[in-house]
């Protein structure tokens, strides 16, 4: 690869020196650009909302570039302090946080409001990857149990806010590390069994009424078509009526005539499907698949266990984002508040995601031992 000509080597090395992974960047820009167009359509064709989103995307890109400059070793060194700070913030959110949309997610740190659960999306995989990589792989049972507990603490704190979507994503980021660290299949299967046994406990003791309602609505949205089922029904109508070719950009009646709620945020995929049809959906899935493949490629080629586990976990969590969002919008998963990564309107999650990709780029471009 590298032997194919002087120029390519040169270009490669310029991006390399800037700590940018070009294929990944291309995929990400593809999604962000697409997002701008869909947001314009879903947001009532107001250019201001597009500008606002573009500026956030620009900020997120800068964050990504900045993060990419930090050598992975630094994260490893700072894993424990970061994790402790994150937990403190989460606890303070529960104690002093702002209430918004029926949940406490934000905390004022003087200058601005921050959402500690977003930061934990990065800190948890760093922490678990650090902890597991301290020991030989495949990870032993006691390592796994401790790692599990480390995952469970922030997950429960976030679930208590309540923010089911984020807590699920954080839990999966930790579990991916454990899986990639070579947890035995016997353990994985028995854990899965245990988890399903936990479901009734979750239902009867831990889930709030509105969360239960979401699950019930998911199981049968037509039961209350004008109430709790409205959103998912309208979303399915939007997707289905898009057909093979879609209704065309700005032509989706479900979104343009405002039948679809939250169309520029969590349900933007429905708008996209309505206007671009199955062809558009296939292309979008391919772009996501491409980014995931690139992320996994970076993980495989990473130089030590910590970076491998971290890169793998970040990539798979990104995919879980995609899967949960599209799954909920198309009705195969209950509605949890997860945006479509890099396409949905909304700055916070985009910054976190792009920071995550910054870490991936750092892993792909920083070499401890230059061969």
């Amino acid at each position, binding site marked *: 690869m590298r032997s194919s000509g002087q120029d390519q080597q040169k270009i490669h090395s310029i991006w390399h020196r800037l700590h940018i992974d070009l294929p990944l960047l291309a995929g990400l820009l593809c999604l962000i650009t697409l997002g701008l167009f869909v947001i314009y359509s879903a947001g009532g064709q107001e250019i201001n909302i597009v500008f606002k989103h573009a500026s956030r995307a620009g900020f997120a890109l800068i964050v990504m570039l900045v993060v990419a400059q930090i050598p992975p070793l630094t994260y490893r060194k700072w894993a424990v302090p970061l994790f402790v700070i994150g937990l403190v913030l989460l606890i303070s959110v529960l104690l002093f946080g702002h209430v918004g949309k029926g949940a406490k997610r934000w905390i004022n740190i003087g200058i601005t409001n921050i959402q500690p659960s977003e930061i934990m999306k990065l800190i948890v995989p760093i922490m678990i990857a650090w902890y597991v990589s301290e020991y*030989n792989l495949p990870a032993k049972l006691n390592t796994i149990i401790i790692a599990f507990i480390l995952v469970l603490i922030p997950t429960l704190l976030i679930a208590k806010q309540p923010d089911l979507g984020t807590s699920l994503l954080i839990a999966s980021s930790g579990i991916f590390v454990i*899986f990639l660290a070579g947890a035995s299949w016997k353990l994985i299967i028995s854990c899965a069994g245990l988890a399903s046994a936990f479901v009734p406990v979750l239902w009867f003791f831990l889930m709030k009424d509105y969360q239960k309602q979401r699950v019930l609505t998911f199981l049968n949205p037509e039961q209350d078509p004008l109430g709790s089922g409205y959103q998912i029904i309208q979303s399915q109508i939007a997707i289905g009526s*898009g057909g*093979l070719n879609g209704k065309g950009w700005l032509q989706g009646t479900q979104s343009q005539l405002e*039948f679809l709620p939250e169309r520029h945020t969590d349900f933007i995929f429905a708008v996209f499907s309505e206007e671009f049809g*199955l062809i558009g959906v296939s292309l979008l899935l391919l772009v996501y698949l491409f980014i995931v493949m690139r992320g996994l490629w970076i993980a495989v080629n990473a130089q030590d266990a910590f970076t491998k586990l971290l890169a*793998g976990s970040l990539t*798979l969590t990104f995919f879980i984002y995609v*899967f949960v969002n599209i799954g909920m919008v*198309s009705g195969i998963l209950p509605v949890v508040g997860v945006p479509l990564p890099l396409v949905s309107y909304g700055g916070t999650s985009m910054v976190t995601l792009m920071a995550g990709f910054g870490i991936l780029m750092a892993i792909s471009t920083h070499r401890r031992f230059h061969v």
Partner: protein
Amino acid sequence: MRKQTKFNQQKRVAIRNHSAEANLFSRRIFIAFLGVIVLVLVLFNNIYDFQVNFYDKYQTRSNSNRIKLLPVEPNRGLIYDRNGVLLAQNKPVYSIEVIPEQVDDIKKTIVNVSTLLGISEEQQQKFFKTLKGKRRFKPLELKSRLSDQQIALFSVNQHHYPGVFIEARLKRYYPFGYLTTHTLGYVARINRKDANKLEDDGISENYAATRNIGKSGLEKYYEKILHGTIGHQAVEVNNQGRIIRTLNFTPPVPGKDLTLTLDIELQMIAKRALSGKRGAVVAIDPRDGGVLAMYSNPSYDGNLFVHGISSKNFKKITDSKDSPFLNRAVQGGYPPASTVKPFLALTGLDAKIITPETKIKDDGWYQIKGVDYKWREMSRWGHQWVNLAKAIEKSCNVYFYHLAYNLEITRISNMMEKFGFGNYTGIDLREEIQGIMPSEQWKRAKHNQPWYPGETVHIGIGQSYWTVTPLQLAQATSILANEGQIKIPHLLKTITERATKTSYDSNAKPTSGPLITNIMHESKPPIVIDNHQNWRFVLDAMHNAVQKRGGTGYEAFRGSRYDAAGKTGSAQVAGLKQGEKYDAASTKESKRDNAMFIAFAPYENPEIVIAVAIENIAKGGGGFNAAPVARQIMDQYFGKRVIISQDKSKHPHHDNIYGKK
């Protein structure tokens, strides 16, 4: 302690098997990647299901979300009189409406507009009440039925009030008001009962945009023809129901126009002639059964009902002891009195009970064997020896007491039923009543009593149970004047389909002119009698009653320039005790006699038949009260036409000759 373990861990890392770990990791990544592929396929498969397999279903649901069909009301057909005078039209009614969304300060705006137009505090409160919970972009009515002055005043100031505007709607209007209400009826708001009826008839969809429906009269009878067919506007709406654009417009088909046989000028004369009286007049063209005039007094203004009548006005009408709601022309059941004498005479002749020469001695009273009761004559001393012609001319009661008694009830009722008494005439009004033609069966069914011969004597002068409507009387007279030919009376002459000049549908053929359908009214088989000459005999007697000095209708028709024939009648409303003398002045108003009159003209080839009924007259009888009403209508009908036989040999006794006072 902690530092120690940390050191140990570092050490362990140093001795770990990197390539084995890398292999393990790569395997796990590969498995994870397979999982990713499976999940992507799950997503794709699900979306494929929506967008390909169930595309039709979701396409339909998406359209039903956004496309709404707005019904468009068809314009109601107009109603004209026989000469093309508009009797029922659709008039724009202006109301002031507000779209709350477009108004910045709704409270201030409403108060200002109200002050400008003089809209009452009460109406403002009503507006604010309806404002709550209404969609903000739907127009709301502040005041309806603006006066011309209010319209002008607001139009000048409209630019001060964005979101406030004047809206025009077509409402039914009857320019002649009182004059036509009983015949035309009126339209009013569709109520629950109407809605149910429409539902039962399966035509409620056609009324989706319609506010008013025919409630009585012709408006009700020809509702289906007048209404037209609903149009539809397909509009695209958003989730709030706000109309974004029109996708498609199917214009409504306006209702068909009706031209009536009615002549509004005759109607006016009828109203004037009946003013201050309770009663009704019906004029029919005997040649085709077309009703030329039909008026019942007192009347009321049908326009009051179009906008919803106020309870005060409604109470005023219902509380009136003159019952203005009653269409006496078809709903008033009156004893026909002596007007039935020509019919009985014909029955007698046909049954061969009498001949034209049969004479009877009239001493002023009549008695039947075994009964003490004396049936009395109007003139106390009687008419002495009278033949049939004189009996009709002078309205001799005793002759007809005798005739009826000998005919017996069954023969009378059989013949009278042929003339339409006791049955619907079949006119195009649903309000019509049957009246009563008593018979043995009728009395058994109604009162469960046998028929007494004494009652037949009363029948001879059109009393006892016998009641007729003025329309029935006119129809019977028409049959008589037609020598047995029966034409069903009717008000509708033609139906006109207006040409749609501006056709919305390019495929529709442009029609050159209105499509006029002449209504063919059914007729019944004629009344056939053994000796056709008998018709002429009876009609001639009626002719004499009007044209011959001393005839009961002579005074009323003195000096007319057309050749009329007729018969008067005065009906007792309250039975008099034996030997009691009727005195109008001392009798309670509602117990006074009714005046009746039937007439037709010209005597040869009659063109108009009239029946008049006037309730509770103060003095005189049919000739004095009712005949002048017919005279005025006929004067108007014939105008300057002179139709009188100058051939003295044909009418040797006639004194009513044009030019002579």
